[in-house]
């Protein structure tokens, strides 16, 4: 069981929301990963949908590229739609 690959787990807490990264776990195959994720991450009623993906299949940005990728987005307040009044009927924005 030491050879079990690592899986990343994404849980959707309720309908209408998106899946959020919950953590990672070990499992021999995709089916076992779903079952393990159910047991590890949803036992206190945290979700109604699970995604799993092998950790090796995740492509991550390089921390070295931080400035190039993210610096440009800072100090552009006009990109944030915070000047609107949201009607009460619009939930989960």
């Amino acid at each position, binding site marked *: 069981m030491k050879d079990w690959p690592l899986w990343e787990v994404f849980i959707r807490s309720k309908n209408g929301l998106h899946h959020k990264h919950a953590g990672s*776990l070990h499992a021999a195959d995709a089916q*076992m990963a779903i*079952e*393990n994720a159910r047991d*590890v991450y949803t*036992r206190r009623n945290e979700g109604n949908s699970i995604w799993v993906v092998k950790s090796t299949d995740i492509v991550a940005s390089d921390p070295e590229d931080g400035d190039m990728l993210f610096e440009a987005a800072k100090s552009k307040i006009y990109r944030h739609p915070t000047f609107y009044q949201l009607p009460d009927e619009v939930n989960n924005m």
Partner: protein
Amino acid sequence: MNNNLYQYLLQLGDNALILGQRLCEWTGVAPELEIDLALSNIGLDLLGQANQWYEYAAELKGGDATPDTIAFLRDAHEYRNVQLVELPNGNFADTILRAVIFDTFNLLLHEALTQSSDQRIGAIAARAVKEISYHARYSKNWTLRLGGGTEESHQKAQKALNDIWDYAFEALTPGPVDHWAKEAGIGPDLEQVKSKWEATLQQVFRLASLQIPKPGFVDRKAKSEGIHTEHLGYILAEMQFLQRAYPNLQW
């Protein structure tokens, strides 16, 4: 009090409580963290089911009876679980093979109980079926993995099946209370449950490349007369210690 109904509820509650207690013994020592959590989850599902059966039983009994007095203040001979669920966990394969045998029975039983003439039983069973469906899937998938895995896992799974098979049939063999339940429309005909149970397990064991042994001694009377193995006393000693040492202790 309807003693037959009370005994029938004890059969249901005691199976759930004792297997739940056994599965929670894996906490902290299972082969993987994920298995540790899974077995404890299943154990806690069973504990919740036991509580519901005991609530109904306590109402029937009346007086000072509560689910706690039923769980903590009965001695071994008053328990009505089958011997299968009180056997020690053994290794992981032993636990899984016991689970697939019991869960398959338990799922068929609770599916039938949703049609019970007793509405309270039907409602409890309808809720429990969702949990037990998962238990049955979990133990089936692990049986397939162990049986079809490495040479060592296959050998351990086959040995586990050989060791436990004689205990499998008590749950499927009707006792006086099961006959009463069938006549009253409260519980199913266990002969019908047994034929579905055998068909399901034959398929699982064939897929897992496991040979079904010939049944040996099957005349066990734990659920009908309270004749248990020595193991139940040790379970109760641990489970009931606090209530016995400090009567009426509150958590």
